[in-house]
């Protein structure tokens, strides 16, 4: 496996027209469609990316885009994909069912055409072809804007080669489709993307991934475009043929290994070999219009959009009346909290990945539900009604992948929160998760760059997982009473765990929560007087406390007590032996456990675990285990602290060893002997 350099994703942004070194025609038009020979079935030409884990090999994956004139708009793009796959075993049969998403409705709907597919099997040294029939291509309407074209290749079995091609024609000329060279679960021998763009359009592209291009070349050409011309004011609507020079570009990669699957990774999307495009300029034959995006432009656009900033400007009597009714309390902070909790508790977020407003704020008010955009922009509108200084902040959640501070790409931003400023204090608010407190964001918002969308306060802000501290403190006091060994348990949780407990208690109730704790202890201890503090104060950490009676075999001559009781690590959280990608935890951890224990009457300490302290990577964290006895008491303090949430692959084995040591140390018992 090729070791990846850390943070290879810091993507390169290049202007397409600049990069085109104008070489002679690329012309590697190898038309191999349907030409499959017995030799194609043997993968004997051993490639290092194929091994006994490989369930299928992508033999060839080629895409191309060119533009045509449009009857309804200006241009349409025509995207064609042709893919050939060798299916090695049943585990890869899913590859034989292809789903193609089509966007839009009525005349602006994307169209699929030229769907062809066939399966090739070897039978007695002969290649047998089974073709897909046109009637077996189904169109499933998913919702108002989305249609899925779906087909499953006939005749697939282990060892088959499948091949398919289809063409999509789209009016959305400003979105040049992206291309992903690397497949998540399968190695790919050859992947190529070719684009031909009329000079009237310019794109820049964003590329990411670790593997090199085998081809990266540009050329010039020309094309003829039949454009329904309604763009010039002087002439009547008419069809016209234009001959326009074009830019052609080809990118290809060879022998791309499967990505594989890793735990503790924000998302594979950040690491896959991929190329993405953004419109940078248009030219109508007379004038060139700069379409290069900038945060200033993007902000202006977002502020104008009816489904974003524009919605905040609309007058809304209902919203005003509601705000005035609920925003009680003295001072801006009290009113802001009243509004925040009203929105977060009355509205249900049904789509956490859409930063835009679906219809309008009136509809959101009426239907009690919406996208994260609906809900948090509603929150902003209500806060503004009270003349508060509040703006939307757009970001990309961890599972959605990174976004660039240097260049705005709106599709890469899927989430919106509110930034509220009261007396020089800044609060970030998210009403789409009802268990969050005022001023808290969910863990998946801690994904680096975010942008304030504002007329006055536009700026970049950063939310790093390293800055999110999950701090947990547990205190246990044990004393001897006439009932036996009694104790008090008290744990203060960090924000993430507090969130989880609130969620669980709201679903099942407090009683069930303690019943689960009792059940987990079984007959080892009886718990009583359980309580959870700050359940209804979501801004504060949860504190769980209860009393317990330790049930120990009475009168045993020796007894062994693990001082961590039920806390601590019993298994290593990093089970895998090695690691290809960084470990990206959602927060930093800091866990402290304190025990103060009276030595049981009639016993003395025969053996006490030794105190220990180990550092992780010098100053990046430590584990401390301090224990001592004296005055009939045992005092213990144990702390695991990591200052970072992200670790590079080369740090992985140290991380695993660090936790292995913790697991070992925390399992050590105190040996008590009868006097």
């Amino acid at each position: 496996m090729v070791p990846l350099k850390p943070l290879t994703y810091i993507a390169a942004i290049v202007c397409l027209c600049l990069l085109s070194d104008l070489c002679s025609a690329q012309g590697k038009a190898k038309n191999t469609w349907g030409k499959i020979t017995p030799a194609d079935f043997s993968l004997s030409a051993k490639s290092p990316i194929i091994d006994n884990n490989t369930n299928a090999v992508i033999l060839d994956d080629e895409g191309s885009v060119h533009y045509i004139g449009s009857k309804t708009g200006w241009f349409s793009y025509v995207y064609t994909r042709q893919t050939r796959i060798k299916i090695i075993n049943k585990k890869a049969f899913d590859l034989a069912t292809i789903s193609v998403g089509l966007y839009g409705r009525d005349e602006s709907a994307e169209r699929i055409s030229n769907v062809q597919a066939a399966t090739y099997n070897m039978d007695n040294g002969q290649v047998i072809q089974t073709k897909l029939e046109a009637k077996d291509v189904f169109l499933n309407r998913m919702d108002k804007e989305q249609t899925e074209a779906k087909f499953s290749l006939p005749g697939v079995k282990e060892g088959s080669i499948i091949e398919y091609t289809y063409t999509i024609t789209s009016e959305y000329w400003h979105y040049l489709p992206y291309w992903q060279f690397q497949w998540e679960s399968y190695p790919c021998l050859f992947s190529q993307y070719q684009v031909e763009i009329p000079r009237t359009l310019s794109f820049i592209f964003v590329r990411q991934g670790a593997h090199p291009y085998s081809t990266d070349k540009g050329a010039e050409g020309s094309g003829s475009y039949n454009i329904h011309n309604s763009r010039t004011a002087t002439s009547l609507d008419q069809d016209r043929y234009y001959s326009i020079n074009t830019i052609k570009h080809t990118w290809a990669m060879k022998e791309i290994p499967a990505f594989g699957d890793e735990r503790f990774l924000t998302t594979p999307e950040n690491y896959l070999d991929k190329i993405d495009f953004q419109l940078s300029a248009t030219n109508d034959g007379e004038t060139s219009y700069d379409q290069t995006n900038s945060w200033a432009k993007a902000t202006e656009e977002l502020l104008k959009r009816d489904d974003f900033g524009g919605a905040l400007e609309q007058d809304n009597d209902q919203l005003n009346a509601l705000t005035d009714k609920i925003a009680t309390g003295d001072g801006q902070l009290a009113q802001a909290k009243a509004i925040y909790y009203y929105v977060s508790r009355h509205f249900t977020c049904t789509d956490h990945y859409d930063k835009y407003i679906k219809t309008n704020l009136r509809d959101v008010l009426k239907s009690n539900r919406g996208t994260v955009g609906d809900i948090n922009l509603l929150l902003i509108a209500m806060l503004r009604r009270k003349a508060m200084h509040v703006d939307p902040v757009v970001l990309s959640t961890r599972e959605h992948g990174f976004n660039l501070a240097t260049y705005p790409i709106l599709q890469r931003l899927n989430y919106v929160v509110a930034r509220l400023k009261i007396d020089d204090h800044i609060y970030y608010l998210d009403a789409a998760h009802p268990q969050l407190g005022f001023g808290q964001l969910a863990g998946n918002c801690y994904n680096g760059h975010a942008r304030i969308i504002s007329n006055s306060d536009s700026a970049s802000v950063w939310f790093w997982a390293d800055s999110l501290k999950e701090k947990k403190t547990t205190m246990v006091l044990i004393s001897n009473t006439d009932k036996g060994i009694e104790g008090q348990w008290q744990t203060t949780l960090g924000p993430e765990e507090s969130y989880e407990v609130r969620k669980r208690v709201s679903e099942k109730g407090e009683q069930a929560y303690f019943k689960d704790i009792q059940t987990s202890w079984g007959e080892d201890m009886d718990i009583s007087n359980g309580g959870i503090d700050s359940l209804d104060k979501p801004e504060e950490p949860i504190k769980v406390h209860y009393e317990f009676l330790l049930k120990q075999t009475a009168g045993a001559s020796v007894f062994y007590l693990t001082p961590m009781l039920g806390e601590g690590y019993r298994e290593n959280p990093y089970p895998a032996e090695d690691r290809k990608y960084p470990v990206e935890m959602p927060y930093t951890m800091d866990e402290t456990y304190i025990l103060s224990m009276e030595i049981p009457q009639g016993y003395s300490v025969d053996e006490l675990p030794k105190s220990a302290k180990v550092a992780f990577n010098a100053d990046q964290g430590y584990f401390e285990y301090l224990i001592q006895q004296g005055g009939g008491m045992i005092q213990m303090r144990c702390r695991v602290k990591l200052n970072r949430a992200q670790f590079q692959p080369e740090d992985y084995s140290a991380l695993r060893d660090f936790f292995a040591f913790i697991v070992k140390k925390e399992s050590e018992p105190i040996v008590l002997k009868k006097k």
Partner: protein
Amino acid sequence: MKRIAYLLLLAVPCLAQAQNYSTALLPDSLRKGARAVIRESELILEIKSPGKAVEKEHNVYTILSPNGDNLGGYTSSFGKFNSINEISGVLYDSLGKQVRKVKRKDMQDKTYVDDMSLVSDTRYLEYNFYCKVYPYTVDYQEEDDINGILDFSDWIPLLNSGISTQHCKYTIIAPKDYTVRYMLMNGAAPPLITENRDKKIYTWEASNLPARNTEPSGPRWREMVPYVLIAPSDFEAQGYKGNMSTWENYGKFIAQLRAGRDILPDNIRQQVHALVDTIPDKRRKVYALYHYLQQNTHYMNVSLGIGGLQPFPAEYVAVKKYGDCKALSNYMVALLKEAGIPARYVEIMSGNDAPPMIEAFSSRQSNHIITCVPMGKDSLWLECTNQTVPVGYMGTFTGGRKAILIDDDGAHIVATPSYSADDNTRCRVIRAQIGADGNLDASVNTMYRCVRQDLPQSMIDEMSAEDRTKYLNELFSLPTYTVDKSHYEEEKGPLPVVKEDLHLLAPNYAGVSGRRLFIAPNLVDRSHKRLPADSVRKYDYITDRAYTDIDSVEISVPPGYQPEAMPEDVTIDGKYGRFKASVKFDNDKLIYYRYLQQSIKHYPPADYPGLVRFYEQLYQADNQKVVLVKKE
């Protein structure tokens, strides 16, 4: 004339009109233990002919708390068999004041197509008020035209756990000469039957039923509450006619749907003969053809046509190499027929928690199709949608239950193989060494059989080697460990076996503290189950798995140690299961033995404390540690 019209108006039931749904009117008896209350649930089914009906529904639910929210939403499907004429919803606040009203255009229109299906001709409407102010009341009304009848709605006045019912009513209006078939379950009351001109009217009605609640590992909902099974006699759909008054007639209908659909193309027929003609043994022939099916087809759901009942022809599967359970079973039957082996198409309710079949009431009670090759006591059962399951093995998906076997003269009720505690075994032999540093090095050899082999079998067949290694490294509750070698062998067949050889290294497995070594002799098979002790049970506790585990462990330790504390031997041989654990120290070796057997059993509430104790004893025994001290 006027008088007749008036009479008709009186006699033909119509849906109750809007009432006062203020929650102040709810009696405490309906609030107790309830997350929601059915204020009104009325269904009127008017059967016009064996293939046509009109269904009117009116449901009013009051949601008392957030865990009742799922009743606040509404979904309704439509397609070839029914069209929705009218649908509407109203939201009321706790005072019974109307907050909002929605119509069809406000609802979402959605598809059933998912990853496992290509296309479906049925869609559904969905709506939710997303009200968060409790209590609130939703009121949905719907009227459907039914065109094609295969079944009727059952009457179940207590809908689900934690939902009480204030009033509910089910009315069926049928032509006088049409037999509406029903069966009263768990003490449900018979209907009131009246006649009016050429109509016969059946009415079930109930009021003020307090909520009941299911219990963990308790009986299924339909085993706890009264309900009425209702089914057609004559029925018709998409041009096919049938009668389901008897299983015989029902079977004839299913056979009719399959008629002429078992014709194989010539090339497949030749392949069948090439495969089996030289095999003398009938059973081996079946094995060969089943293997052929598994190698050459896979599951894909294409939901078009008659209510998901009619299989695609054998020829379709022969070309496409895919199909759903019906198409693949139909194809399997055709392959066997070509080989001269009579086989049957079998309807079954699949799933680990499928409700038992009601044999005395012939109706649609299945969601899956399998194939049976009758061979007296040793009949072979074939699951045709899975490419890796061992031949003849049903597992927990379709094993141990009744099914409907379709044959030439209709249908018969048959039982699929069930697997006892003696069949579902896991025998494990471990040889291990522990060093003075506490590091463990172990060879773990395990033989899994029947239900016990399901997990390792699916792991072998569905995971890549890399994923399997990852999985194995997360499987055991050992502190930190690495599986550095793994090897599997399968013996496929009706009682399948998987043999697993693992080698694992677990640094610091044993606790080392000064002179002592702390060793848990049970390395990887500890019971983690503990039951809540203070639960008050109303219903049986059901242990739903039958299995036997046998572990023999030998751990070598460094010389010079002697035991300081040894767990006591445990033997439990009672109604809750059989358990035995013992550990000896001999010649620098720990010898550990463990035996656990449990069966599928119902325990009455009085036995619950005994069960709690049983699992606690297991937990304690399994987590015991041996303490060794270095000799002075």
